[in-house]
C-alpha cells in the first residue's frame, strides 16, 4: 500500500506548487477587493482570504515547496494587512491613488524604457559581457534620438539615429571589453561618464539654454479600436505607445531567439563556457561583439523612447538611473527575457504608485522610487531564489 501511495503522490491533481501559486494569487485578491472599483469597506472578507492564502502557503511548505509556500504566506499577510489599511483610509484618497486604468497606463510608460534596457542587458550578459554601461547607452539613445528626430524631422529616422548612436557606443565598449580585455566594470563605468559628457556637451553646444524645441516629431500611440473602449484596462492598453508594443514583442523575440534557435544557444554557450564554445567552432569574439552591439541598440531604443515618445524633450542626464534599474531588472528577472519584463513591470508599477501616493503622504511616497533597488538588493542576497549570472559573465576571453 505504501508504494501505491508513493507512486500516486506525484499524480495528485493539486500539487504543493499549485497551492503555492494559488496562495500568492489569493493574497493579491485579498487586497484587491478592498480597493476601487470593488471597494469593500469591511476588512472581514479580506482577512479570511488572506488567512486562506497563508493556509495554502503552509500546505505548500509542508509539501516541500518552501520558497513558493513562504511567498504565499507573505502574500496573504501583506494582502490582508494592506486590505485592513485600505478599509481604514478614506474612499476619496483610495480613488485618487488606485485608478487602475491610469495606474496601468503609467506602469507601461515607466516600464517601457526599463524593458528595452533590460533586454539589452540580457543579450550582453548572456554572451558573457557584463553591461554596466546600459545607463550610458540609454542616455546616448535618448539624446541622439531627439537630435535625429529634430534634424531629420521624422521620429522614425530619429529613432534610427538613436539606435545607431547606441550601437556605436556599444562598439566602443565592446572593443575595450572584448578586444583589449579591459576590466568590464571599470570600462562600463567609463562609458557612462563618456555618454553623460558627450550628450551634455553636444546638447548644450547645439541647443544652448533654450533646450530642445517643442515641435519634435513624436513616436505615435497605437490606438486599438476594440480594446480602447473597455472600462478597466482599455484606456491603458488601447492607447499604449508604439514603442511599448515593440518592447513587449522584443521580449518575446529575444526569448525565442535565446532559447529556441541555434544562434541563441551559441550566445548562451559563449556566456557559460567560452572555451567549450570555441572548441566546437563558435567564434567567441564575434558572438560577443554582436551581442554587445545589439545590447547598445536595444538600450538606446529605451532611451529614445524617453526623449521622443514619453517626454518629447531632452535634458542633461535625463535617464536618471533608469539604466541601473534596467540592470536591476536583468538580475531580478534572473537573466531571462520573461523575468526581466515582469521585473520591469514591477519596477514601473512602483514608480507609477510613487507618483500617485502623495494623496496619502506627500513626503514618504518618494520612497517608492527606491523600491526597485531595495528589491534587487534583497534578490541578490538570495532571499527570493538565487540569482545566478551566466558562468563566464564578466570574464575576458583569451583565444588559445
Amino acid at each position, binding site marked *: 500500500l505504501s508504494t501505491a501511495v508513493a507512486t500516486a503522490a506525484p499524480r495528485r491533481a493539486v500539487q504543493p506548487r499549485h497551492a503555492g501559486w494559488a496562495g500568492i494569487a489569493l493574497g493579491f485578491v485579498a487586497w484587491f477587493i478592498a480597493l476601487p472599483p470593488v471597494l469593500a469597506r469591511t476588512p472581514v472578507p479580506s482577512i479570511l482570504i488572506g488567512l486562506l492564502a497563508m493556509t495554502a502557503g503552509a500546505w505548500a511548505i509542508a509539501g516541500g515547496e518552501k520558497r513558493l509556500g513562504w511567498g504565499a504566506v507573505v502574500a496573504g499577510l501583506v494582502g490582508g494587512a494592506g486590505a485592513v489599511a485600505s478599509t481604514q483610509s478614506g474612499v476619496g484618497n483610495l480613488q485618487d491613488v488606485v485608478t487602475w486604468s491610469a495606474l496601468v497606463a503609467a506602469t507601461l510608460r515607466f516600464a517601457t524604457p526599463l524593458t528595452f534596457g533590460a533586454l539589452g542587458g540580457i543579450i550582453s550578459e548572456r554572451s558573457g559581457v557584463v553591461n*554596466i554601461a546600459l*545607463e550610458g547607452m540609454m542616455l546616448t539613445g535618448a539624446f541622439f534620438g531627439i537630435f535625429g528626430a529634430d534634424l531629420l524631422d521624422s521620429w522614425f529616422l530619429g529613432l534610427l539615429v538613436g539606435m545607431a548612436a547606441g550601437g556605436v557606443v556599444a562598439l566602443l565598449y565592446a572593443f*575595450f571589453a572584448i*578586444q*583589449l*580585455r*579591459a*576590466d568590464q*566594470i*571599470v*570600462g562600463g*563605468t*567609463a*562609458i*557612462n*561618464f*563618456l*555618454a*553623460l*559628457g*558627450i550628450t*551634455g*556637451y*553636444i546638447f*548644450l*553646444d547645439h541647443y544652448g539654454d533654450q533646450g530642445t524645441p517643442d515641435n519634435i516629431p513624436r513616436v505615435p500611440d497605437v490606438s486599438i479600436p476594440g480594446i480602447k473602449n473597455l472600462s478597466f484596462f482599455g484606456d491603458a492598453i488601447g492607447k499604449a505607445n508604439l514603442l511599448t508594443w515593440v518592447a513587449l514583442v522584443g521580449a518575446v523575440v529575444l526569448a525565442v531567439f535565446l532559447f529556441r534557435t541555434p544562434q541563441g544557444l551559441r550566445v548562451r554557450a559563449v556566456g557559460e563556457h567560452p*572555451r*567549450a564554445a*570555441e*572548441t566546437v567552432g563558435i567564434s567567441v*569574439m564575434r558572438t560577443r561583439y554582436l551581442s554587445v552591439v545589439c545590447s547598445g541598440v536595444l538600450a538606446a531604443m529605451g532611451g529614445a523612447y524617453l526623449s521622443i515618445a514619453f517626454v518629447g524633450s531632452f535634458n*542633461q*542626464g535625463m535617464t*536618471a*538611473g533608469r539604466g*541601473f534599474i534596467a*540592470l*536591476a531588472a536583468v*538580475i531580478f528577472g534572473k537573466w531571462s527575457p520573461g523575468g526581466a519584463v515582469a521585473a520591469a513591470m514591477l519596477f514601473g508599477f512602483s514608480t507609477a504608485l510613487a507618483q500617485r501616493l502623495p494623496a496619502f503622504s*506627500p*513626503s*514618504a511616497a*518618494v*520612497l517608492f*522610487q*527606491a523600491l526597485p*533597488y*531595495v528589491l*534587487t*538588493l534583497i534578490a*541578490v*542576497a*538570495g532571499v527570493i531564489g538565487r540569482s545566478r*549570472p551566466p558562468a563566464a559573465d564578466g*570574464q*575576458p*576571453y*583569451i*583565444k*588559445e
Partner: protein
Amino acid sequence: VSDPDLEPQAGAALAGEPGPEVAAMTPAARLAGYVRGGGIVVPVLTTLLAFFVGGLVILVTGHNPLSTYKAIFNGTGLNWFFPWTSSDDRTTAALNLQQTLIITTPLILVGLAVAFAFRAGLFNIGGEGQYLVGSYFAVWVGSSFSGMPKLLHIVVAIVAAALAGAVWAGIAGLLKATVGAHEVISTIMLNWIAVWVGIYLFGLNGPLQNSDPQQQSVPVSSDVVSSAKLPVFWGDPELQGLHVGLFIALAAVLVFWVLVNRSKIGYEVRAVGLNPEAARYGGISVARNYVLVMAVCGVFAGIAGSLDVLGWEFHIATNDIQLASASGLGFIGIAVALLGRNTAGGTLAAALLFGALLSGTSQRNLDPTIFEPELASNLTLIIQGLVVLIVSADVIVLTMLRRGRGLFRRRRPAAPAPAQEAEAA
C-alpha cells in the same frame, strides 16, 4: 609613487604565458600588475591622452583648445604658485586655488574609499552612496545640538558620518561575505537607495526638511549651526575660504598608507585582493576582510561627505542630491583611485588633478567669455570618462607592449592549437 611592497607573485601571471588564469584574475591582481608595469609614466600618458582627445572635442565644436585649457588652468588658481604672476592676478588665483583645494578635499577621501576596496579585490562603486549617507548624518548632527562646544560638535558630526558610511558600505561587504552577492551590484543599489532616502529626508514635508518658516516650500535641510562649522584657515569665511578639512583628508592619506603598507590588516587585505583562495588557505578570514574593508571604505567616503557639509555647503538640497546621483564626487573617486593606481600618493595626486579640473571648469572660476562653464563641466566628464576607459584596458596594453605582441591576434598565423585544445577539453 609606485608601490614597491607588492608581493612578487602579484605579476607572475602577467609575466608568464597568458593562460586562462589571466581571465580569472581579480581586479586587484590586474591592478597590481599595472602598478608594477608603468611607474608614473603610464598615468601621465593616460592623462595627456585624455586631455588631447578632450582638446579634439573642443576643436571639432569650433572652439580653441589652447585658450580653453589656458582659461581652465587659470580657473584652477594653480598659477598662484608661479612667481611671475602679477599681484592682481595673484588675488584672483588665491580665491580660485581655495576652491580647487575645497573640491580636492572630498575627492582625496572618496578616492581612498575606492582605492582601499580595490586593494582587497573589491570594486566599490558605491562611494557616492556612502558619501551621501555620511553627509546626511553630518548635516543632521551639525544642524541640531546647538549648545555643544565647538570642537566636540565637529568631532561628533564627523564620527557620525564616518559610522554611517561604514554601515552603508558594510551592507555590501556583509552581503559579499555571507551570500556572495557581487559588491558592484549591491553598491550600485545602495547608491540609489541613498539618493531616494535623501530626497525623502530633505524633501517637502520630509522629516529633516528645514524648520525655517520662510523656507517651507524649499526642499533643503536646516543650516549647520556655527559651532559645527569647520574653521577657515585661508581666505575669507564669508567668501567660502579654505577650511581645515583639507588636513583631515591629508591625514587620511597617511592613515591609508600605514594601513595598507605597514599593518596586519593591510597585509591581509592585499593577500585577499591578490588571491582570495590562497589567503583563505593561509588562515586569513576572507569573509571578515570583505566586511572590514568595505566598512573602512565607508568611513573614508562618509568623512568626505561630512567635510563638505561642515566645511562649505552647510546644508543639503534635494536638487544637489539628484545632480550627484549621476556624476557626483563618489563616481569621480573611481577615476581618482584608478588614475592614482590605488596607492596613497597616487590618489592624492589624482585627486588634485580632478579637483583642479572641476574647479577650473566651474561656473565660479572659468572665464565665460572664452569657454562656457556649462560646456566645460561636460568636458570634465568626457576627460574623466576617457581616463577611466584608458585605465580599464591598460593592464593588457602593458602586457602586450612588454611582450611586443600585437593586440589583434587573429591576424597572426594560427598556431596548431586545435589538437592541443581538444586534449585540454
